[in-house]
């Protein structure tokens, strides 16, 4: 188990290094960051001075060396937009996103697991068809549309929740629901199909034939075995939310998390801050992946590292 975890961590480090290289190449070699960042009216002298200030006038290998050196120290430099440490800004926004995403995934699991299990017990029943239909609807709804509809209904029409911002529980409700519903839909489908697979296996049929207690059979044995694919999907939902959906949902709700910050840094053409955001997200994704792998191994020791 220890070696397994270590190997996963090393894989993760390799992936993070790969991402840092991609980030560097994209920022330096595609387009001219200095030109994009300055106003159209800026003079040639101003452009040259700005390039020198950021170190963009040095050779690419020299830039890459100092970039790597800075990253190892977790120092991304000063945000061009806010004139303060890019990492400090990222750490200001990161907790808000983690809270939002974590609460959403917990809510999604809380909805999906009982719903999926109940649906799996009697495939084809009305309950099953209702939950499957709800799941399909949940899968088809785009986040931004769902968010906008929730705002229209619960903020503009009923006035129950604020349309945007953060800071109180009320502010979190609509974004969490917007995140959670589609994730819950996908998870419900997964729980249902995994459980149906397990329930049809011989050991469950045998246990049932022997009249072993129902909850023990379904809850302990079948669900435990069905939970590996469910855990995979839950982990992926977490990653999806961190990597992309937070951008959409946080923008719709003007919720000042990392996704919102990413869009701001793009609008401000703040490459330094964007680098810090992208690498932070990459690091978190790798960490989640490693944790997921270690968790499978704990649940099912037969799993081997691919």
């Amino acid at each position, binding site marked *: 188990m220890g070696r397994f975890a270590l190997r996963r961590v090393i894989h993760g480090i390799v992936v993070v290094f790969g991402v840092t290289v991609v980030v560097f190449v994209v920022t330096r070699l595609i387009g001219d960051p200095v030109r994009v960042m300055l106003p*159209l009216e800026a003079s040639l002298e101003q452009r040259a001075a700005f390039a020198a200030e950021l170190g963009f006038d040095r050779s690419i290998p020299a830039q890459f060396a100092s970039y790597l050196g800075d990253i190892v120290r977790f120092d991304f430099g000063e945000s061009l937009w806010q004139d303060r440490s890019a990492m400090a800004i990222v750490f200001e926004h990161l907790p808000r996103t983690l809270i939002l995403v974590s609460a959403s995934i917990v809510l999604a699991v809380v909805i999906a697991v009982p719903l999926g299990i109940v649906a799996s017990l009697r495939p084809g029943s009305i309950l099953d068809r209702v939950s499957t239909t709800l799941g399909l609807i949940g899968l088809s709804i785009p986040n931004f549309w769902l968010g906008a509809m929730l705002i229209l209904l619960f903020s503009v029409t009923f*006035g129950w929740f604020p349309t945007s911002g953060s*800071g109180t529980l009320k502010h979190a409700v609509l974004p969490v629901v917007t995140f959670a519903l589609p994730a819950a839909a996908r998870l419900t489908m997964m729980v249902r199909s995994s459980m149906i697979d397990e329930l049809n296996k011989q050991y469950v049929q045998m246990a049932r034939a022997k009249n072993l207690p129902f909850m023990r059979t379904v809850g302990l044995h079948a669900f435990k075995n069905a939970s590996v694919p469910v855990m995979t999907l839950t982990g992926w939902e977490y990653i999806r939310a961190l990597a992309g959906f937070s951008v959409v949902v946080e*923008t719709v709700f*003007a919720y*000042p998390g990392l996704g919102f910050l990413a869009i701001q840094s793009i609008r401000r*053409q703040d490459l330094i801050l964007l680098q810090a955001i992208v690498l932070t997200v990459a690091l978190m994704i790798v960490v989640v992946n490693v944790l997921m792998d270690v968790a499978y191994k704990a649940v099912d020791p037969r799993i081997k590292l691919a």
Partner: protein
Amino acid sequence: MAALTTLALLAVACGGDDTTDDDGTAVPTETDGATTGDDGDATTGADSGNGIVIAIGSEPTSLDPQLRDDGGERAVNDNVYETLIARTPEGELTPGLAAEMPTQVDETTWEFTVREGVTFHNGEPFNAESVAFSVNRIIDPEFNSEQISFFNTITGAEAVDDTTVRITTDGPDPVLPSRMYWMKMVEPVSAEDAGFAENPVGTGPYRFTSWNRGESLQLEANPDYWDGAPAIGSVTYRFVPEAGTRLSGLSAGEFDLMTNLLPEDTERAPNFASVQGLEHPHFILNTMEGVTADPRVRQAINLAVDKEAIANDLFQGFAVVDQCQISSPSWFGFNPDLEAYPYDPERAEELIAEAGAEGETIEIVSESGRWLKDRELTETVAAYLEAVGFTTDVQIFEFDEYLNRLFGDVRPPAIFISHSNELQDADRTASFELEIGGTATSHDDDEIHQWVTDARTETDVDAREELYRNAWQKACDEAFMLFLINNEDIYGLSERLEWEPRVDAKLLVKEMSLAG
């Protein structure tokens, strides 16, 4: 993961200040509406009653009013800081912190008398010394102000006595009063403080209260304001980039004012107000080579496009047709005698035939998402040009590639651009688009160049105005650009807020009031 990273970084390259959300600012305040009335609401600190919330599209970069140049900063600082020269809502220059309009001592020296009895928010007196400090601070190369292009003719300032200050320039500079409309006056002691960018100290009608990074910023009325305490007691700025989310907040009663309401959303807002703004989308035509080098072709292009239809349909009436110049009536140097090329496709076809340009391909370069309806405008223009017999080759690039074309050695026959002139003085536009060597200039007309450079140092106001009028007259006759429209700025308002928007797009809360 790599794909995600690449996408994110590519997005940077394409991102710009999408004018649809702004530079402006709009702010929401905590109103007494039911939606945000929860206790301890960290996001909206305005007390109910006579506080307002303004939703703006972007957060200030810094609250040092001399350092950066962005819409979010201006929206807030325009209420905290003041300038020697102000403007009326219609755009006319008028004394601000100066007791009267400045006088010229000699060709390169302007003398200002400052208003007496004005104090900064920290109790320090405002005087000639603080003016001299402010001027010398912003022009100091070490300070590295982003606003320096507004002030690069100024060489220094010196206090003569407590109420008199002299500002010197590197040559005759008739634009100086307009420049001083842009330069905010800071308090010398606090400006030296390391935390100044987060603790602004000005003379304005509002004082800084708090700033919740990423989310909101609060100001309160300055009871000691020299022109009398303002009617609105406090203002909360909320940073909401999406125009749709700002509109939802406005509809839900959370905000009293939002910036950059889209033309198609005006009917959904509780209330709205609009005013002719500063933005002039147009196409620069290459007059030096290719098919557009023939003035008849350029005139035909101007005749072929129905500008009225663009203003009325594409912009739903929230735009006015440009009078054959990249200038608004409120800007110095505007030529009121010019009229837009009429929509006359038949005459356009005749000119094309005379020039032997039937069926010629016109390459049109544009980008998408940086300026309001830029792509739609480009496609509409292309359709009009096709209708009179040109073939068009529309190329819409991401912003960096677009800049390659704009700054490249050979400018395309037609390239879309939108220009705004915050100083409202023709010099800024002329040095960008009319003077040979200007970033967006696409002609080699020595006469226009001479008029523009002469105007830069002409201190006789009437003579100077005449020079710009000549320049615009010739640029219009020769059709150096495809002149299109001047956008209106549209603001969403709550039903209780009363305010008339200004031509300079400033959101001066002291000019607002609450109904009832």
